Structures are given as structure tokens and as C-alpha cells.
């Protein structure tokens, strides 16, 4: 079910990008619109650890603004696959330009050896939830031909949530459930290549 939702969200975002492209083209700015792919690796640094992260964003660029659909791997805390919309804008016409960006989307929990479902049989009924993730930050990019290399620093937020039965907390009315919410606040340092 989770993967179906994941796929559905991806398709919707892709279709939105496609429509936007068509719309802009219809406005007569054909030459300014082109496909863009932003790929990066980085570190997510927070209270509990520093973990490797990577993502790829693919979308369209219009002048100095781009919008795309991103997907990545986020190993901080519990592993998730973030699927998000990325908005990005650079400034100036120089070889090295400052940029700002913002992402928002949904983190899809991925089962690992460390996932709550794996802890014990008491957690076998654990249901993980797809939760919000977002990031905003600044950076610089240096043009290399028609492509560019970039470095960014950003604040990154990820929520991870699941519910499970708590057998030791049954009340008179029967089953009791607990919902666990994790709010992860991280600093993300990324570098990558855009073409």
C-alpha cells in the first residue's frame, strides 16, 4: 500500500511538471525552458548522528528558476525515502551565483533491521506512517559549461511516525494503542552537479 502511495505521488508530481512545461511553452518561452537534473550527495547532521544522504531532482528550469520532483535516501534516525517537490532559484549572471531552494514532500518509511517492526513480537503490529519532510537553504553554484557544480547548506526536517498496540497498557475498554512521533531537525550539507 505504502509503495502504491509512493508511486501515485510520484506520478502526480511528474504530471504536474509536464503540464507546467506545456503551459510555459504555450506562453511562447520555448527557448528558456529546458529539462534540468540536480544530483547531490551530502551529510545530515543532527542530535543523534551524522548520516550520509543522497538525492536526485529532475524537472524543468525557466530562466533562473527551477521546479522538480526529487527522490532520495535519508538514513537519519529511521530510514526513509523522501519524495518531494524542489523549488530553486539562483541570482545574478555571474559564473558563480548564489542560490536559494526549498523542498517539501513526504518521507516513506523503509523497513530495515532497525525498524520498529523488527524490535520484538510486541511490535509486530506496528504501522509506520508516511510523514512530512522539508528542507530549505542557500548555496552557491559555479557554472561549468552548460552545467554547474553547487554546494548548499540547509535546515532539514523529517518526521517519522508509527503506531503499535501496547499490551501492558490495556485499559478496561480493551486494546490501547500508542503513536510514536519523531521530529528530526538536521543541518544538511550537500554538494552536487546540475545539468
Amino acid at each position: 500500500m505504502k509503495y502504491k502511495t509512493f508511486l501515485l505521488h510520484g506520478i502526480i508530481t511528474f504530471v504536474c511538471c509536464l503540464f507546467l512545461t506545456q503551459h510555459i511553452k504555450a506562453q511562447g518561452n520555448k527557448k528558456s525552458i529546458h529539462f534540468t537534473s540536480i544530483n547531490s550527495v551530502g551529510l545530515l547532521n543532527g542530535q543523534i548522528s551524522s548520516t550520509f544522504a543522497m538525492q536526485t531532482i529532475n524537472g524543468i528550469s525557466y530562466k533562473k528558476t527551477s521546479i522538480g520532483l526529487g527522490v532520495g535516501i535519508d538514513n537519519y534516525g529511521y530510514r526513509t525515502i523522501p519524495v518531494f517537490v524542489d523549488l530553486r532559484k539562483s541570482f545574478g549572471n555571474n559564473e558563480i551565483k548564489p542560490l536559494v531552494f526549498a523542498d517539501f514532500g513526504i518521507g516513506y518509511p523503509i523497513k530495515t533491521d532497525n525498524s520498529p517492526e523488527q524490535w520484538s513480537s510486541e511490535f509486530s503490529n506496528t504501522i509506520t506512517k508516511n510523514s512530512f519532510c522539508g528542507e530549505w537553504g542557500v548555496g552557491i553554484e559555479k557554472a561549468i559549461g552548460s552545467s554547474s557544480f553547487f554546494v548548499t547548506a540547509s535546515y532539514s526536517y523529517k518526521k517519522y511516525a508509527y503506531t503499535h498496540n501496547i499490551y501492558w497498557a490495556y485499559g478496561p475498554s480493551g486494546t490501547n494503542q500508542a503513536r510514536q512521533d519523531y521530529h528530526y531537525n538536521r543541518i544538511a550539507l550537500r554538494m552536487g552537479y546540475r545539468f
Partner: protein
Amino acid sequence: MKNFKSSTSVLAITVLVITTLFGCLKDKATSTFKVYKPVTEKLSVIEKRVHNTTPQSIAKISKLSVLNNRIFIVAPNKGIHIINNTDASAPVNESFIVLPGCNDIAISGNILYADCFSDLLAIDISDPSNAKVVKTIANHFPDKRYAYGYWVDSTEAIVDWAIKDTVVSQSVENSGNYVYGNGGIYYLSDIGMTASANAGSGVSTNGSMARFAIQNNYLYTVSSSTLSCVNISSPRYPIVASKLGIGWNIETIYPFKEKLFIGSQTGMSIYDVSNPTSPTFLTMFSHAKVCDPVIADSNYAYVTLHTEENTTSSPFISLMCSGGTTNELDVLDVSNIKQVKAVNQYILTQPHGLGKEGNTLIVCDGNDGLKVYDATSPANLVLKEKIALAKTYDVICLNGIAIVSTATALYQYNYSDINNVKLLSKLSF
């Protein structure tokens, strides 16, 4: 070049600011769940409220006790219905004793013994319409002070539960972060083996689901783990004579001659009470993890094993009994107490209480009705009649009349002619 320096400076400053802020960034984890908070009340106050009131509609039938021409039906945790059964074909709902926390009773003469949460009460019922508490044995059932993670003081009882949504902070580390909230949240004579305790005139006859039994001027009670002996030779002034730990998940007690047959979820134990105050373990017959009432006579014990319905109000009981898949009637040869032998097994649907008088054995088989057997040969019981009744619970066989409790009514059948069992009355609730 100037632009490069400018951009790099902006990024450097930003990184510096963000890195500085990094120290302020904290992860947060919360656990959200319902907390059941007990509403407690002083037992002394509760016990002052014990009184008779007008007959109440019987919402949920439970254990039965019969003395002379009256039937006493326990309304779990609420009180005791008194049914005047002078005419078995027309029983009358006569009165109701308000007794919170009551689940088991036994009667000797004019004194009714009942649990009231963790206390044991002696109640004078010489005038059944004006019951009066004459003696309290405090904290006789200490395990009843525990419920759903809470222990209450021996002077108090949990009378209700308040539900509160609660959010607590917890560790953000990746591990099984159990949340520990308040209250430790987290983390049978040959004459009348009538399924019943019987000791002589003036002593009530209880159903096979009973946890109280009277024998030779002693009241025996079982809690989930303890067998208690209470001297009632002076009925109004019961005195605890002894307490004995007898294992776990004890469910029923049945007295016969000098023996007590204890039914637990894992087997039937037999204790010798020839010395009434010092019950001595004799033997145990183990079975699957199921719930079981037991009755016995000189040579045979009859044990019904049943799985618990999922509809129980207690998930713990459901969990405890749910491990078993057995629904059967076991007949055991107990003539040689040192060597109990299984004689035969009869597959049933969901048998609960049972009773026997003479050679007639009657079993409440849950939704499969009431089953009347000819038990002339225990090794080869003959089903003589099956009466369609829903949710049969317990039965007392006495003087040719079977008093049967179901979820919705109290039935009485005349089985003096086993080939022609007749319905005498039905008291609907």
C-alpha cells in the same frame, strides 16, 4: 572574481550561522496514548453502601448459588440478585443487594460471604430484604488491588476509570522505546454431586464456576494464586485460618468430602483438607492452556475445558485462555488419588459449567445448548437430550431440578426423568 568572493562570503556566513544554530537543533520524540487513570474510593465508604434495593433487571448473569428456596445470582461488580424460588415453575425476582466489586458468593445459614473488591464480607441475610454487613476481612484478596498496571492501597478500590489522552516525551535514539506512564503502564456425595459445594443443611450449593466453597465450617476461597481457608464456625465472625500459594491462573474450586478440586488454566489440582486449615497438595492432572471448571464424586472428576470467547471484557483473560484450542469434557478416574487417570474425552463446542446428581450429568455447552447425559458409565456417557439454549453458562443440579444460567435468562428444568426433561420456568432479564 569579486562576485566569487561575494558569493563565497555569503555561503560562508550562512554556513557559519547554520552551524552555530546547529547546536540549538534538537530532535524530539513523543509518545501519544490513552492513560487509564483509576478512580478510587475508600472501601469503608463502599461497604457502608451495601444495602437492599428493589429488584433489578439482570443485565449480565454470572455465578449462581442456591440455598433452600432462594437463588442468588451475582451481578458482576454490582451486587447480588435474590430470586425467590419457592415455586420453581414461577420464580420471583425478589430483591437486589447493592454490593460493588462482588464476583463470588457462598452462604452458610443466614450469613452470605462475598468479595467486595479486595475485602471479604460477611453479610447477614436473615432478612433477605435487609442485608447488613456484620464483618469485614480486609485485604483478603490482595491480587484484586491490581488492575491494568495499577496497585491501589489495601483500604481502597478502583471503582471506575478515567481516560486521558497523554503525550510524553521520550528518547529519540533508535531502539525499542517503551513508554512508562503512570501506574507502570509501560513498559461433589454420591447423592448429589450437584456441581456444587455442599456441606450440609444451611450451606449454599454453588455452581461449578465458583471460586468460593464451604466445607465443614470452613470457607475456602481461591484467588488467581492463593487458596485461603476461613474459619466460619462462628458464621458472623469469620477468621482467616490459613493461606496457601497454589500456583497461578486459578479459576474454580469444588469441594468433595475431604478434598478440594481446584481448576486452573493448566490443570486440575486436588488438595486434601482432612486437616481443614492445612490443605495438602495431593495430585495434579495437567491439560492444555484453557479455562476449566471441575466437579467430582468418589471415583470420578469431570472437567470441562473451553477456549475463551474473544468478546471477553478482559483482554488479559482472553489472552490467557486464547492459547488453547480445546473444547472438551474430560472424565478422570480419581479413585486412586495418587494415580489420576483419564477415562474418556468428549469433544464439545464450548463447555462451561456442569453439574451432576445421581447418574445424570448436565453440561452447559455454550451456544450449543444444554446437554443432558446418562453418566451411569462415566467411560461411556450417553447423550440423552440436547436443549437448544444460547450462551449457557452454569448449572446447579439439585433435587431433580437443573437451574441453568445463560446470558439472557435463568432456566429451570426438571430432569427427574432423564428421558423427558421438562422446562419448568424461564426468568428473562
